[in-house]
């Protein structure tokens, strides 16, 4: 009997341990947070960004020490699978009070009343201060403001000035033809020294082309991610010329060996080592990378607009928001969460410091004027937002990714079959156009997507 009792106790312990193991650790952390802070109200913030985590944690610590609202802010970092973590939290009703903007997450839940309309709590001064950051159809929908972008990024050509001088190139290329010629020149003259004309991290086609080819097409003819806002349909036929140049750019005559399997950080290491003539990347990330991650003399490199086929400006290049916050409308402490958001993330001190320290490129005019930039950014005018940049409308797939479920490979992977494979250009692009439009129409028929067509759309004034 005693033996049986011991056995049963053992079994109960094993089962309990197993079930406890299945429980989420997040819940535990939150509970501990409550206990630790005593009677204080805990406001939780989730971020997916590691690069600015220390800066924000410092601001949060100061806020926790100085606030008079009896609030304890818990700042938590989720760098892996942020989208999935948010999905599960929404499902279980455990979404934090504030979270960093992620386009997919924002668009997925914006029509489900998940995000707080900031206008409800914004005073007139705040509305006035951020009035230039309101974009109808993007962060403002049906008269409700869901987030305020404070920093943005866009693509630029990053080039090594020393290598350019060495082979006699006076200025960075403005057209794709010039770019291919410059890359060929550098590779032919300097490959003996291990220096090559052009590199791109083509291991992930979407990561590489989002910051390069997408931007080229936006400026070339106002097409964003294959979508023509005037016609209200996808049209990839106009990509053939630029893809032809890409094929050359990635050939042995121009490109750094092994671009097919290159990630962005190994590429940056080689650029910092002076082995790469040029590549394309985001404006917000590169200054910090060459200041701290892979140190490189700031005088040796510069940024320029991404070359296009014609070299003419026929449309603006999209600005992608990099720093913004969403407030959970279903939080028990939504009003308090808004106050925390306002007191930490929208002060001039926070925004100026963020820009000055190179965590993001400010898009707020007053901050741009006030900030004392370090030399990595100050001396490179093309790392800041210019006339060629603008905020473009959302394509049907950006509005709701589930509204355009394309059968077969997406356009990034399909382009891979053109520039690395033997796919025939015209028929492949025609098939791509057909597949995207079919998926778009299906989304509308299913009631998931809506028609996006802008009468008289001017790509230069989006």
């Amino acid at each position: 009997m005693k033996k049986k009792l011991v056995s049963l106790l053992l079994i109960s312990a094993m089962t309990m341990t197993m079930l406890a193991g299945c429980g989420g650790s997040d819940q535990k952390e939150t509970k501990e947070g409550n206990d630790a802070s005593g009677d204080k109200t805990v406001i939780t913030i989730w971020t997916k960004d590691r690069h600015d985590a220390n800066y924000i944690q410092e601001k949060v610590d100061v806020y926790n020490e100085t606030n008079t609202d009896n609030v304890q802010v818990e700042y938590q970092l989720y760098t892996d699978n942020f989208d999935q973590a948010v999905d599960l939290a929404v499902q279980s009703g455990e979404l934090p009070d504030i979270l960093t903007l992620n386009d997919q997450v924002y668009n997925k839940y914006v029509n489900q009343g998940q995000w707080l309309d900031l206008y409800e709590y914004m005073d007139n001064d705040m509305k006035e201060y951020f009035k230039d950051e309101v974009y109808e159809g993007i962060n403002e929908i049906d008269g409700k403001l869901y987030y305020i972008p404070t920093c943005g990024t866009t693509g630029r050509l990053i080039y090594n000035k020393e290598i350019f001088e060495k082979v006699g190139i006076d200025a960075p290329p403005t057209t794709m033809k010039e770019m291919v010629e410059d890359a060929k020149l550098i590779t032919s003259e300097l490959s003996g020294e291990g220096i090559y004309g052009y590199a791109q991290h083509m291991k992930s086609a979407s990561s590489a082309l989002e910051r390069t080819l997408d931007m080229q097409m936006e400026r070339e003819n106002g097409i964003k991610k294959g979508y023509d806002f005037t016609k209200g349909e996808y049209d990839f036929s106009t990509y053939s010329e630029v893809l032809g140049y890409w094929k050359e750019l990635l050939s042995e005559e121009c490109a750094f060996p092994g671009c097919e399997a290159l990630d962005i950080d190994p590429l940056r290491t080689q650029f910092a080592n002076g082995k790469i003539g040029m590549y394309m990347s985001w404006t917000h990330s590169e200054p910090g990378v060459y200041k701290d991650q892979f140190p490189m003399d700031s005088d040796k490199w510069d940024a320029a607009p991404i070359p296009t086929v014609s070299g003419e400006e026929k449309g603006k290049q999209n600005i992608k928001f990099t720093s913004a916050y969403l407030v959970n409308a279903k939080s028990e402490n939504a009003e308090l969460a808004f106050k925390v958001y306002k007191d930490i993330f929208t002060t001039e001190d926070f925004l100026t410091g963020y820009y000055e320290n190179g965590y993001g490129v400010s898009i707020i005019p007053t901050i741009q004027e006030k900030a004392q930039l370090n030399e990595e950014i100050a001396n490179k005018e093309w790392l800041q937002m210019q006339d060629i940049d603008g905020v473009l409308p959302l394509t049907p797939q950006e509005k709701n990714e589930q509204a355009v479920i394309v059968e077969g490979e997406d356009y990034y992977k399909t382009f891979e079959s053109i520039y690395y494979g033997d796919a025939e250009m015209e028929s492949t692009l025609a098939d791509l156009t057909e597949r995207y439009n079919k998926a778009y129409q299906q989304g509308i028929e299913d009631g998931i997507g809506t028609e996006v067509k802008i009468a008289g759309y001017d790509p230069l004034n989006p």
Partner: protein
Amino acid sequence: MKKEKTKMSVGYRKKMIKRNLESYSFLLPNLLLFLLCSIYPVIWTLKYVFYQYGGIGTAAPKWVGLDNLIRVFHDEVYWQSVANTFVYGFGKVLIIIPLAFFLALLLNKQTKFNGIAQSMVFLPTIMSSAVMGLVFYLLFNAYNGEINQYLMSIGIIDTPVNWLGKDHAMKTLIITAIWGGVGNYMVYFIAGLQQVAQDALESARIDGANKIQTLWYVTIPMMGPILKIILMLSITSAFNDITNVMVLTEGGPNNSTMVMALYGYKYFFPVSASSSVIPQYGYGAAVSVVSAAIAGIVTIIYLRLSKKLDDIY
């Protein structure tokens, strides 16, 4: 009489249940985990084969019947990934099994040196595949990889080989997989070798058989059953091996190293932190089910063909 028999059997059954309650209770935690982690996901996957669904927070699953399965059969990239899986799987198995067996023969005797050598060969097995992938990237990359530099220094190649390019990426993946798995199979073979009856080996020696004859006519046949299991494990693991591929090539360039398990995975999760994904759970489930069926068919064929391995001893 009949009533008495029924009474007896009910009583007997009760007694048996009571007696076995303890054993069944011990099985309960594992059974619960098995149901939760193995059976439930399989049922979930089978269900979503017939739906279009984008995951939590998206529109409710929409019944699409056999559309997802039909799409799989028309998906050229998927069938390319199936072909790649066979190249990868057979490439790996054909090299790793003889190599592991050879190492097992070499290091079977229990000496101090063999113990250290066994540990060294086994070490990659306990290394994270992601770390292994990164190390192999440093070794094989075209611009400053150690392999190219070594081959150039001894004059085997004149210019760097693009090991992760379209023409060689699959070979590089197979090499990585062999390096990572050979220690594991070597341990299985050593266990098998130690099971071989010493008296049979002794008889062969007395009969005048040399070492090769003993190996060929006695040792290998006697290892038939364990060889069958090792081969089956290596084949099935080759079908599910995706971590190496994810880290080294993400299935590229141009899908030249895309394997069927990774192809299904990418409809659920992004393949890397920098890549994007539009979740298609229904289609991903269909791809997974077809892939599982292919792996199942291969395993059945193998088990039929390898029946002889059981009969030898």
